[in-house]
């Protein structure tokens, strides 16, 4: 199998306010079976980079291609799991309603959800082991369960690329373990990009790590020996505290 790049980012820069660049000269390639972890300090531009990949923001300089097209054009192939805190838990919608929102854009105004759609929803909810809770309101679920609802909502779109923004924040240890198992399964059919400042766990699961603090440095975890991984691990934690993660990556 030839491994084609599905995301190609070249010399990309972005600033919310002039002269205060949050992303500087980013270069990145993501391949179709990659499991990429993006780590970096808060304010380092992780979410901004995701927003550019999702076509919510346009880069000031440089280019980005997703599946060889502009990000907005390929959204049908992309699944997105947003940050935890953004969602209003009082909203009166059920788990099943939420999962079906994943395919709402494929429906025309007068088209009801049909049996096929419900089957897809059932499949997605069974995959994340939540079918029994389909009628619950979102606020009635635990943190880990909610996270899986958002994953099901992304999976019902049958994505070729799954993007998760800080997914492990505010879920307990047991749920987190199940969560990584789930992602490993998903990675069999789809590329996965996961953003996290929780660097402790991420190294065990991903095959590529990108360190982002305005600039981005990327390398493969497979190429590293255990010893090196140990080093990176420690250094990274320390250096992230200093806001200079790139120094570590230059060594590799």
């Amino acid at each position: 199998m030839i491994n084609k790049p599905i995301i190609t980012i070249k010399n990309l820069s972005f600033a919310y306010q002039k002269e205060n660049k949050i992303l500087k000269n980013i270069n990145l390639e993501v391949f179709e079976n990659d499991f990429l972890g993006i780590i970096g300090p808060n304010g380092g531009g992780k979410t901004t980079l995701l927003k550019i990949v999702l076509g919510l923001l346009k880069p000031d300089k440089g280019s980005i291609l997703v599946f060889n097209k502009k990000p907005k054009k390929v959204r049908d192939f992309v699944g997105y799991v947003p940050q935890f805190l953004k969602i209003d838990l009082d909203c009166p919608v059920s788990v099943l309603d939420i999962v079906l929102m994943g395919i709402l854009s494929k429906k025309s105004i007068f088209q009801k959800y049909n049996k096929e759609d419900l089957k897809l929803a059932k499949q997605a909810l069974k995959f994340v082991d939540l079918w029994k809770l389909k009628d619950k309101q979102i606020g009635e679920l635990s943190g880990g369960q909610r996270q899986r609802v958002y994953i099901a909502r992304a999976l019902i779109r049958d994505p070729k690329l799954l993007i998760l923004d800080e997914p492990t924040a505010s879920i307990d240890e047991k749920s987190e373990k199940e969560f990584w198992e789930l992602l490993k399964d998903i990675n069999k059919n789809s590329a996965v990009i996961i953003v996290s400042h929780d660097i402790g766990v991420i190294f065990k699961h991903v095959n590529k790590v990108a360190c982002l603090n305005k600039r981005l440095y990327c390398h493969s975890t497979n190429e590293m020996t255990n010893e090196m991984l140990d080093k990176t691990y420690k250094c990274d934690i320390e250096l992230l505290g200093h806001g200079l993660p790139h120094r570590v990556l230059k060594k590799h």
Partner: protein
Amino acid sequence: MEILTYNFFQNALLIGILASIACGIIGPFVVAKRISFLSGSIAHSSFGGIGLAYFLGFNPLIGAAIFSVMSALGIGVVSKKFKKNEDAAIGAMWSLGMAIGLVFIYLTPGYSADLFSYLFGNILMTSFTDLFLAVTLNIIIITSVFIFYRWFSAIIFDEEFAEVTNIATFPIYLFLLCLVALTIVILIRIVGVILVIALLTLPAASAQTFNKSFKKIIPWSIFFGCLFTTTGIFLSYYLNMPSGPMIIFVACLVYAGFLICDRLRLLQ
């Protein structure tokens, strides 16, 4: 109960029910999307249209409809495109509409006797035209929500996700605000522009304390709307008080009751 045989009283009850249907359907979306303040701004700026109608001599509710829809679109654009200044900008639109209305009324010769009724509502002055207008607006609101229900809940629950799945979130948001504007027009007859916001949100907010899906909240808020308006109208008759404030008293009292019950349930 002799009062029930009077035509004006029957009209009052009828428009109360028609308004309850409209706010029972739209209110839950306003409450869930947390745009009560924004809706208050739409309501107040519709006063500009009432003033204009006085000045040019046509039905003030038509003027209110035009102005409230226009300000809904304006406020919608401001709230999304000038995110940073949203709060102050909405406040500005709020006062601007009122100011425009007052200028027009000042320019209109003669004394505007029933102006007060548009500010605070007077359900006992309901005309046949008002009823006809309310029915028409209700038909528009019911049909729209029936068709767009799933899109409204999608942008209310998670607008960003809807956006990245290529749903036209901004036009849908503006459309929802226009429906809010039309609902407000029906409510103006009953409680007036100043008190509208309570009747728009309290039936839905009450219903939301013990229901967890739009499909259940909507019928319950229609029921609460009917309860608030009807009780208010009877109180207004027996206590010889204006109808708008009576309706608001009932609504606030019931909502406060639900809030306290909800609080107690959490403490248990």
